[in-house]
């Protein structure tokens, strides 16, 4: 997903950011379906939406739902103009799937909170203005889900250090973020102190349910289809594969719409979102594998370099699809709970 602050600001100028946020905060005052349509078109076009993505998808709605009036007045208009980019502070070195074990701590001090600890695998941290982080504000590590809160951290504040992490494809989308006694104001808490776990769970339903969870490999798929179309006579394996992948996409898209309908009805479809995300990532991961298989079986002139580069890239980053936003095993555990098995 490309990052282009200018593009995000241009979207904001057209009123296309914060589409679901109320007009009084600078938003579009529209429902989740309006955003669904817009996001689907942006993703299909391969638009560089990375800068505003997290703020638009989850930080904005989170602040609208749980934030104070002052927080909403300050942050939401900036998000809608494409001036404020957010990142998410969830994972830590010792807290991956076991998110409730986070150790980063905000300690009550005169005039606010003192933050210390470390976040990891933070997407776009060096280019974001704020992080909403899940941290411990009371109790100890053994209290698990109790005593966790979400805080807004100004990433320009003294004591914040960001180190990009180079990934296997040569990019540096992820970072580690260190907090050395970072001073946060009284107003840094989002929602109720101690309710962080419930809020994060609701936030993750937004993260897991969007159409981007089925379209990560779409650019590769379309590039490959163009390649197959360019052949005089497509081989039967490619025809069947194209149909199989398109069939899955069509069904997943309607499942996404069904989850969006629940969001629109004010529900928090945690289990349904987990189900769609797991099915979606399975398809996204199957695409590079299957496409490589049929390309590698072809005779005739070699496929275009751009297709092979996209194929290599998606192949290499595909493992992350079933890690981000909850691993496959965590999601299946949630589905099992929804089925009444645990």
């Amino acid at each position, binding site marked *: 997903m490309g990052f282009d602050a200018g593009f995000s600001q241009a979207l904001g100028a057209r009123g296309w950011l914060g589409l679901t946020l109320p007009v009084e905060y600078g938003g579009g005052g529209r429902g989740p379906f309006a955003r669904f349509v817009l996001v689907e078109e942006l993703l299909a076009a391969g638009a560089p939406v990375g800068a505003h993505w997290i703020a638009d998808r989850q930080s904005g709605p989170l602040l609208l739902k749980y934030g104070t009036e002052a927080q909403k007045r300050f942050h939401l208009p900036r998000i809608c103009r494409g001036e404020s980019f957010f990142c998410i502070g969830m994972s830590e070195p010792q807290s991956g799937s076991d998110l409730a074990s986070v150790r980063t701590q905000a300690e009550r001090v005169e005039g606010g909170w003192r933050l210390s600890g470390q976040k990891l695998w933070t997407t776009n941290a060096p280019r974001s203005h704020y992080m909403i982080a899940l941290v411990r504000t009371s109790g100890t590590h053994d209290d698990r889900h109790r005593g966790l809160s979400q805080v807004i951290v100004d990433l320009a504040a003294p004591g914040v250090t960001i180190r990009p992490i180079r990934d296997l494809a040569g990019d540096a989308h992820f970072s580690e973020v260190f907090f050395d006694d970072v001073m946060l104001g009284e107003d840094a808490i989002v929602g109720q102190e101690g309710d962080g776990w419930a809020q994060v769970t609701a936030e993750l339903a937004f993260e897991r349910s969007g159409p981007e969870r089925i379209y990560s490999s779409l650019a590769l798929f379309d590039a490959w289809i163009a390649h197959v179309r360019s052949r005089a006579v*497509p081989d039967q394996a490619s025809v069947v594969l194209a149909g199989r992948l*398109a069939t899955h996409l069509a*069904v997943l898209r309607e499942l996404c719409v069904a989850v969006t309908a629940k969001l629109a009805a004010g529900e928090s479809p945690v289990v349904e979102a987990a189900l769609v995300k797991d099915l979606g990532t399975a398809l996204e991961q199957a695409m590079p594998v299957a496409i490589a298989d049929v390309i590698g079986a072809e005779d005739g002139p070699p496929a275009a370099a751009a297709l092979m580069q996209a194929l290599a890239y998606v192949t290499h980053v595909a493992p992350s699809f079933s890690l981000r936003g909850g691993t496959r095993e965590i999601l*299946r555990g949630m589905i099992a709970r929804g*089925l009444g098995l645990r």
Partner: protein
Amino acid sequence: MPSPATVSPFLDPLEKLLSVHGTPAVVRAVEAGDDAGNARQAWIDSGFADLLMPEASGGAGLPLRMADELLRTCARRLLPWPLDATMIARAAFAGAGGAAPDGFVAIAPQTSVDADGRMLCRGVPDGAAADWILATVAEGAMLVPVREHRSEAVFRGGTVATDVFWHAQPAGTTPIPRGMDWMAIGACLMATRIAGAMERLLEMTLAHASTRAQFGKPLAAFQAVQQQLAVMAEQVAAARMAASIGMLAEGIEPDPLRAAIAKARTSEAVVEVTSIAHGVHGAIGIAAEFDLQLYTRRLHAWRLAFGTERRWQGVVGRALLAAEGPVLDAIVLRAAPPAA
């Protein structure tokens, strides 16, 4: 769009009828060749077969999409007569100003006629329980009588699909008054059956996992089993959505692309869903007296009937490759329901 509430007046009576005349005992009896006369007559008298017929002809004028839940409900019980195909055939006759002959209609996926006029319909779902086989030959589609005529039904290896054979085209054969894509219709109906049967199969498997204990605790307490059941639930959800896409039609004919998507995705899900269901049930699932096999054998038969996933993936693939532009416009948004 009319509200889905229009369906609800029919759902309750349907459930009631199924609970009396759609029991596993009835399913077994019909499969064994028993006429199950009382139950059969109750279904014919119920009027459900007329739901898709225009109101002017005494039907309820339901479009296909409003029959989605009703037919899935029948499939949850494995209703052993082809009510679904009969509904569409009756509506096809009524829509052309005529009336279909009485009785159940089963659609033949494949029909061949040899030089001597002998006719073979291969792999007809519910073929042995139907009064008429809807066969498509060179001259078009026609209803061919099964009962009271010289015909042979051949069962193979525990499948519920039947081969039906005639030495000559029998008297009483009636042409369908309207050209329709019966392959797409059959595919769409099988997809809905698969989705309904899978929903019930998931419930049965969850119930078994919660009651059957090994190593001192229910199977459902084992994480490996939980993950399997989650995968099963995902496949069932995908199949159900796919089947509903297939039934998204205002008239009685499914859209060919949507029908292809429905059959391809539901058929593909059959493999994993039946495999997990049997795995979780263990050895008892193989026993004939246990109901599981009633479901899994039909799911395999319906996967094959009117084309497996590979056939319909080929249809979707050719449509995608023949189109221009990205998959989203060429396939995905074409399959989506029209905006309300």
